[in-house]
């Protein structure tokens, strides 16, 4: 049994099933399904690129790559159930390649492959913020809010990738393990540490909202 087959036989996630259904419709020639699938693939690429890597200018390139690769992949797809995992692997790899081409630039977000010690939740020292970095942060702030952006930014890239895939994108632990090439136990450990770090970072705001909750 292939790894991708193992991924969907024991995991009845309705969101992945919905994705697979859309893939089947698109592969069968449904133009509307193809359009929705290709826009959705770019949305995944945008979220991952901006939230994990933190670069708006990369996000546009990663979206373009996700679009073209999805279009090619869907037309010869053998296993629609494995599409979602394939898409996130493709987007993650596209982000890695973009970062490798930009090794000399300062980074407010530490890029995913710079990571540092995989078991450390804190990021490495940050580079000097530049105008582009500020613009990226402002774009993310306008989209998801300052609080969450700062809490994500405080995580190492490895932790951030796990949080984004698991909590924001809603993938299963098994899917995240497959995409990041970690064990499921390691995904759970990183997720736990990341949640604790984010809670600490968000602390005062969370305490405030808990007090004011009905």
């Amino acid at each position, binding site marked *: 049994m292939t790894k991708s087959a193992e991924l969907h036989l024991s995991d009845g996630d309705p969101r992945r099933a919905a994705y697979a259904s859309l893939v089947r419709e698109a592969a069968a020639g449904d133009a509307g399904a193809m359009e929705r699938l*290709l*826009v959705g693939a770019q949305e995944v690429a945008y979220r991952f690129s901006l939230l994990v890597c933190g670069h708006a200018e990369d996000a546009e390139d990663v979206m373009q790559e996700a679009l073209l690769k999805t279009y090619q992949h869907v037309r010869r797809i053998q296993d629609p159930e494995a599409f979602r995992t394939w898409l996130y692997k493709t987007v993650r790899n596209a982000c890695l390649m973009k970062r490798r081409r930009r090794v000399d630039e300062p980074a407010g977000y530490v890029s995913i492959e710079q990571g540092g010690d995989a078991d450390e939740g804190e990021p490495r020292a940050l580079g000097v913020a530049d105008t582009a970095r500020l613009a990226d942060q402002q774009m993310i702030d306008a989209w998801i809010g300052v609080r969450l952006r700062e809490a994500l930014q405080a995580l190492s890239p490895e932790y951030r990738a796990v949080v984004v895939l698991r909590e924001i994108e*809603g993938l299963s632990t098994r899917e995240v393990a497959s995409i990041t090439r970690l064990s499921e136990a390691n995904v759970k450990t990183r997720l736990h540490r990341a*949640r*604790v770090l984010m809670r600490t970072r968000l602390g005062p705001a*969370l305490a405030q909202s*808990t007090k004011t909750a009905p």
Partner: protein
Amino acid sequence: MTSQSCHTIMAHLEAYLDGELEATECQAIEAHCTGCTSCAAVVAELRETIGLCRQVASVPLPEPVRARALERVRRLLNG
């Protein structure tokens, strides 16, 4: 889970938050939190942290980004 110590609660917290515990184990944690304000605060704040992350999935992309995505798709599909 028979012990109700804070340490025991924390050891099972992730599984609890991810809905991986049996009903009786969930009830044990909830009963502990009723009388332990510090564990209750941790659970509430972690839940809110997770909730904040999950909300992002439903936040639409900025309109110019969506428009560019759709334009790229239509250009590709229409040759």
